[in-house]
């Protein structure tokens, strides 16, 4: 479902590569966890995957569609939950969701029923008529998740999705990710919460200083079952070490 071939990116105002020759393949029906320390290149990879940034080299395909050649078709397949919660603060929740829905070609009763369903699920029904600027961090995160789902995407890309969520919503989100993947779709998410990655993901990748240092199922990466993912992560990403 998602393919990255030799993807590299260097920011205009930086010398070092943010992402260096990254190759990844993520299948349908899979929850894929993307791990790495701060500044490792996780968000840059996600931004390239969602069409926000253009890679310097390499190709990215979503469901067989090259995002550089057909950006609009590829983007239409993705539901994106960013990590920064920057939204249009002076819009109401409902207005924002209508805007996003229209951009993805979902309007009318379909949009209304989806908004009602997800708003109810995340207990956001009462909050949606209010301005986004008045939302808490967690509420913005929930709105972001709903906005990513209103067009029923095939690929769900989430950057640090659990940050700021209350325990009920975090649980609900994890359940949704599983259900979404079980329906044949793909979930690609980055997280710092290793426990969650350990419990939810089918496969994981670890990136450090822009380079992929490990990618496999948790069992295969962790050859010794007694070693926790946390200590494995710390070993792999520590200075001078790479697998």
């Amino acid at each position, binding site marked *: 479902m998602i393919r990255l071939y030799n993807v590299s990116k260097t*920011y205009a105002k930086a010398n070092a590569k943010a992402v260096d020759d990254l190759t990844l393949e993520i299948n349908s029906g899979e929850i894929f966890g993307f791990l790495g320390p701060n500044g490792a290149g996780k968000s840059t990879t996600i931004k390239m995957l969602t069409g926000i940034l253009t890679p310097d080299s390499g190709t990215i395909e979503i469901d067989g569609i090259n995002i550089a050649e057909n*950006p609009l078709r590829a983007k239409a397949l993705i539901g994106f939950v960013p990590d*920064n919660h920057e939204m249009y*603060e002076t819009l109401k929740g409902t*207005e924002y969701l209508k*805007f996003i829905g*229209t951009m993805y070609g979902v309007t009318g009763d379909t949009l209304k029923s989806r908004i009602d369903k997800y708003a109810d699920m995340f207990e956001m029904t*009462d909050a949606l*008529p209010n*301005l986004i600027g008045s939302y808490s961090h967690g509420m913005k995160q929930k709105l972001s998740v709903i906005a990513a789902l209103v067009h029923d995407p095939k690929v769900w890309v989430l950057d640090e999705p659990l940050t700021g969520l209350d325990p009920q919503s975090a649980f609900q989100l994890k359940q949704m990710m599983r259900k979404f993947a079980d329906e044949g779709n793909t979930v690609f998410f980055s997280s710092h919460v290793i426990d969650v990655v350990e419990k939810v993901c089918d496969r994981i990748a670890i990136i450090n200083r822009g380079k992929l240092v490990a990618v496999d199922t948790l069992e295969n990466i962790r050859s010794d079952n007694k070693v926790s993912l946390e200590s494995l992560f710390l070993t792999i990403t520590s200075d001078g070490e790479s697998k």
Partner: protein
Amino acid sequence: MTKYLTLTKLLFLQQFKTRFGIDKKKRRGTIALYVVLILCFAPTVVTVAAMMYFAGKFTHGNADFGTFLILLCQGLVLMFGIHAIISNVFVVKDAEKLLYLPVRAYVIFLAKLTVAYLNELITTAVTVLVVLLPFGMGASAGVGYYFMLMVSVVLIPMLPMLLSTLIAMPIAALVNLFGKNSYTKTVLRILLYVAIMAVYMYGMYRLGFLTGSENGSALDNTEEYVQYMLGDFTDKLNGAMPYFHPDYMLMNSMLAPTFTTFLLSFLAALGENVALLALVFAVSLPFYRRMLTLSIEEGSSRHKKGKENFDTKNIGTIRQFMLTDIKKTARDSQLGFQSFAGIIMMPLIVVVLYFFVGIADDGDSSLLQLITISTRYQVIAPLVILAYMTFIGSSTNILGLYPISRENRAIYILKSLPVSFNKILLAKVLLATAVMAACDFITCLLIVFLFEIEWYLGLAMFATMVFLGFGSMCITTLLDLKEPRLGWDNFNQGLKGVKNSWIAMLISFLTVVTIAAISVPFIILFVAFDKWYIMLLMWLLILGIAAGYSVVGYKIMTAKATKYFERIEV
């Protein structure tokens, strides 16, 4: 004191942070732009300076007249600085960032006020150079005048600061009292701003500015006439100026014939200005504290409860974009105010201009009545007004000047949508043009009714303005797209030093020059042969060029937009 200085330095430098690290190529471009702008504006500046020189010469350095000039400078400082005072000092968006610091609220307030003052110094210095310096030269003032000129730069902003603060407080209080809705807040702010500026301009009008008695027309010598006019004007000022005592004392110290007079006047001016500063601080600190509390409590107090029946009808991508854009701009206190207040200025200036030239004392003819008698009035006046509208319009429309920078950190939303970027841009340009067109329409309507311009010429002006506006918006949109300012916390500060409005002015200037160059031969032909179709041809040509300009502008924008958009790294 250390905390105050550190905070002031931080807040002041933060405005210019994006200027640092500019590469040499860009710096050269900026210098070139400013040189061109200086050359463009030089004739106007030189004319004003020359007028001030002769005013100084003919009034022999009259203190009342000099005080009036200080008031004029202060009016300009007020006009340009009031936005900054309201949005940087009283709109406390950064409250949560600053309040956790171990610094008292009054220190934060004082630092913000100082930054606003430092910004006003720049405007003051420019006005002093253009107005007071030539006035002193004309009056053959002594060395003391030029020394005090430097001191005056420091003292002149005090009164505008006090007025800005006094204006900002009722605006903010009324907005909080009546404006529960974000739109109402913006509309209230704009109405109050317009009302206050109108009162200021009317006040200047009542002082006799630009009005003269017709009795003077009996004098056939130009110099004598100007002297008569200035004498008449100075007489009108007599008695009024001492009410503006700090300014009156400042001007007296500048023109003082003896050291004792200088010292007494200077000490009085200094003391009164310090008192003004203390008054600003004493009056506005409690208000600032109140705004601080409101800004923190606001978020949690305005939640509505309950499900909302919202409309999900498909209105099309471009219309949805425009609707979303106008909503998010109009509801933002800073953006909404600046976007719409700037545009409203154009019809407001037309009305004020009418007060100056269209109304006369009983029994006298107004200037407008005198010039409308000429058969050439309907030929030349629409072109002059069109030039003015082009010039003011495109450089005040925030919607068209900063369509991408307005997105700020949420720019990633546009980048992740499955919508062609050219469509997004078209929506932005259409929105800016539509808002501008509404303003152009009102202005043209006012011109037709107040300035007795023929309705069909008003219509031609309106159509030309819409085309020129669209073309200019395309160019400014592309400029903003090339180097957008993203990641700001305060729109005003974030866009400090951005050249877009200057470039827009320059583009407008070139457009005006082109239209003037085209019109001159037609005007000469019309004067010679007096045939209506000469004017028709001229307007058709102007309209054609304006339409061509909009098409070319749009083509240039779409040709480069996607490349620039992809280059934006967020």
